[in-house]
């Protein structure tokens, strides 16, 4: 059972107004009104697919939080993980799957995707991922750009991805709100929206903002990037105060006029209030360090640096500040700020006791994130960083779940969590491993052995090779 917990309300919302809905039947999320403002105007309509219980036996289990069980068993029922261990209770109507030779893991969570906002086919008319009209566009929400018919969702599912964060692009200092979805594409974005997941904000360091705006009024330098973040936070603080004053007046029974709403500042104030999580595209070690100082100056929290190609240079600082790094295994060199990429980045960040995440930022990479983690794990091992496979899987499960604020719901094989689970044909650290069965909230949403059951997007219906082995 999951608990839709609507606490990503408007920043200005004073704590009393937060609603914590508790429901046993995965009902639709409702709007929440705070200080006269609907804080959840696009509520999730995601529905768990009804399913019989499953019991998988005799399987090697990586639990996603560092544990490994040989010859283990799992019971999935009512959308959640009921039991996991060396043996589980028998349930009369359960479908039993023999996991001999196979491996079981939590579903992969990709905390950096542009599926739906930069979909396939990549036509200009579908290119909705980046509002490159000004460096500060915190008012835009990626969810309003998502095309749920992107065939990339089905491909990612075949790679074992059960949840993903869809972000705006990185041209802007503040690119707008991200959204986290369950990888069960349906008619609308709301049908996919992860119930109760907090919003994120996309921010960006470095080359992209200066390249895009250098000839369009700035920023044209990294120093102007930093001035831009700081100016925006100052504006957000003012906005935060205006609304706090208004709320205080209301609380005191004084009649007051509400301040004018500003969507940009509403999102920024939400960050300062800790209700919107910061996902910051940042490659260089020195820039990440500057950003952690800005974070302290304005008393907000950077949840995760994305790409973080030079995170290995400052593992100690990242650990000290509790900031995650979401990284590729081996991408490098496509621009100057990616020139110092090394293959041991993920393992070195992990070894520094900082939070390491393997992300994709790619409609191809998202299909084999297990291989990306495997490469990073093996490269670390060769460099003398001995990490267990079970710990390495946290890069794909617990850590991205924490980065997205959904670890209380998914990201590990623990009793009571969403049954987001992948059964692999073999050790998923092998190139030859394939996701055989993928479960989301306890329903088998992908079965490699049954091609007729594979999901097909509207776009691919009636086209060449509809339903082919993708």
């Amino acid at each position, binding site marked *: 059972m999951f608990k839709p917990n609507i606490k990503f309300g408007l920043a200005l919302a004073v704590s009393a107004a937060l609603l914590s809905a508790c429901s046993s039947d995965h009902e639709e999320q409702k709007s929440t009104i705070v200080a006269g403002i609907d804080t959840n105007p696009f509520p999730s309509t995601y529905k768990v697919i009804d399913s019989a219980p499953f019991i998988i036996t005799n399987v090697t289990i990586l639990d996603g939080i560092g544990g490994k069980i040989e010859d283990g068993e799992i019971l999935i029922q009512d959308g959640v993980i009921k039991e996991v261990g060396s043996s589980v209770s028998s349930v009369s109507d359960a479908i039993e799957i023999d996991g001999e030779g196979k491996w079981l893991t939590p579903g992969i969570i990709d905390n950096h995707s542009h599926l739906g906002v930069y979909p*396939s*086919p*990549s*036509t200009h008319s579908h290119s909705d991922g980046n509002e490159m009209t000004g460096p500060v566009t915190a008012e835009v929400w990626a969810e309003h750009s998502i095309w749920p018919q992107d*065939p*990339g969702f089905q*491909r990612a599912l075949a790679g074992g991805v059960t949840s993903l964060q869809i972000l705006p692009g990185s041209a802007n200092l503040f690119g707008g709100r991200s959204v986290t979805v369950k990888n069960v594409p349906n008619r609308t974005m709301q049908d996919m929206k992860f119930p109760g997941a907090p919003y994120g904000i996309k921010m960006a360091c470095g*080359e992209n903002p200066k*390249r895009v705006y250098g000839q369009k009024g700035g920023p044209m330098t990294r120093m102007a990037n930093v001035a831009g973040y700081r100016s925006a936070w100052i504006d957000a603080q003012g906005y935060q105060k205006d609304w706090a004053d208004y709320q205080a007046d209301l609380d005191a029974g004084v009649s007051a006029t509400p301040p004018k709403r500003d969507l940009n500042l509403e999102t920024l104030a939400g960050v300062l209030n800790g209700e919107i999580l910061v996902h910051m595209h940042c490659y260089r070690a020195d820039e990440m360090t500057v950003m952690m100082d800005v974070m302290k100056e304005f008393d907000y929290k950077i949840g995760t640096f994305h790409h973080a190609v030079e995170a*290995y*240079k400052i593992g100690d600082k990242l650990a000290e500040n509790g900031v995650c790094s979401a990284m590729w295994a*081996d*991408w*490098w*060199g*496509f*621009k*100057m700020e990616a*020139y*110092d*990429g*090394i*293959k*041991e980045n993920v393992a*070195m960040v992990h070894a520094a006791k900082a939070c390491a995440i393997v992300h994709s930022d790619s*409609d*191809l990479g998202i*299909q*084999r994130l297990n*291989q990306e983690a*495997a*490469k990073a*794990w*093996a*490269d670390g091992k*060769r*460099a*003398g960083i001995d990490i267990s496979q079970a710990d390495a899987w946290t890069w794909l499960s617990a850590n991205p779940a924490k980065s997205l604020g959904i670890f209380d719901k998914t990201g590990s094989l623990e009793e009571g969590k969403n049954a987001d689970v992948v059964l692999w044909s073999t050790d998923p*650290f*092998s*190139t*030859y*491993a*394939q996701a055989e069965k993928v479960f989301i909230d306890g329903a088998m949403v992908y079965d490699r052995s049954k091609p007729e059951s594979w999901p097909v997007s509207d*776009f*691919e219906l009636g*086209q*060449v*090779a509809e339903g*082919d*082995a*993708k």
Partner: protein
Amino acid sequence: MSLFKKVSIVSCMALGLGMSASSFAEKIAIVGGKVHTVSAAGVIEEGTVLINEGRIQQVIEGTDVPSGYREIDARGKVVTPGFIGAYTSLGLEEVSMSAGVVDARTNEHPVSSVGAALDVQYAVNNDSTLIPITRIEGFTSAATALSHTGQLFQGQGAVISLATSFDSVMKPKAFMQIDVSNSGAEDNGGSRAAMWVAIHTIFEEVTFAQSYSLNPSEDWEGISSMADAKALIPVLKGEVPLLMKADRAADIAQILKLKQQYSDLNIVLVHGLEAWRLADELAAQKIPVIVNPEYNLPGGFDQLGATLENAARLHKAGVKVVIGMDTHNIRLATQHTGNAVANGLPHSAGIAALSINIAEIFGLDNEIGSLEPGKVADVVIWSGDPLEVTQTAVNVIIQGEEVEMTSRQTKLRDRYLKRDESVPVSYTRP
């Protein structure tokens, strides 16, 4: 046949030049590995590769090494020919964006009206950090070419060695490139209706030019420049392979028609996302295909049939499959191949797709691409199956010389792994 001979003589000369700087007299025995010879000898479960004078002397079963060889223990490991980057811009591109001149991309210049004359042999930077970064992962040579010209042709590519050298070009003018996919059409009249007329017109011009003296005193009013026409003559004769990029089945069908009309053409299909739909026809015409087997999304309306089984289906129909399209991460071609194998390509075909098949399409199969006596000693010892993402190259031998397994990336790693907190970081020299 005489054609291939000519090409390989040229390549031997070029190679000789490239190798003259290095000493390759060392006799090396790679002992006891599982040897993928990628030749008629197949896979030898426990074999020994003997190297002398920079060439492979012999591949023998067992571990009995004649005296006089330095032995490298490969027991429990896997030995393959050095892999070849099939389709890269290695040596032409250091940092792709906003970082100065990138020789893999050209601007318009009066020497070439249609892009055919452009020639990367002059642009290869042997000191590029990409070269050590790539070779320590088991790639010992590569085809390198322009990635974009905005013109009809993307110029003439070269095959380069990844040894340390001042002249790494093994084979200049190794191939000509043309893009007839959506992107080619976009750059050339905005439609295939313009692009293909241009192609046919240019081929007619070049046919004419074969019997014409192409020198500056002559009048030449082709849509191709005189330099372009000169570059295209050996292509039309089939002496230089023509790499044609296309995805859509209808575009591939046009390529097959072109081959019917100009039967000497030595065509290699590149990208080929829907090539599996014409696999039998491609096999019949002996047209090999260079693919990235991981491309399975419809990036455009000419890629709707993309599937992870492309490589396997092509191979099954008898098409020669080549894998490896990237530059900074061409080293990941082993992973790409592993994924093709996971989706039905036989493992042996995967190894061939990284080695001998590439040598064959560029006419270098007498020199590189397999472990056979007389070939250049480009040999790699792997910790295990090279197609497994957790395995890696452990020793790399190029032209009979063992290369140092370091790169700018390993140095960055080692600096920060062993950082001395008492001094600023720039004083640590790994």
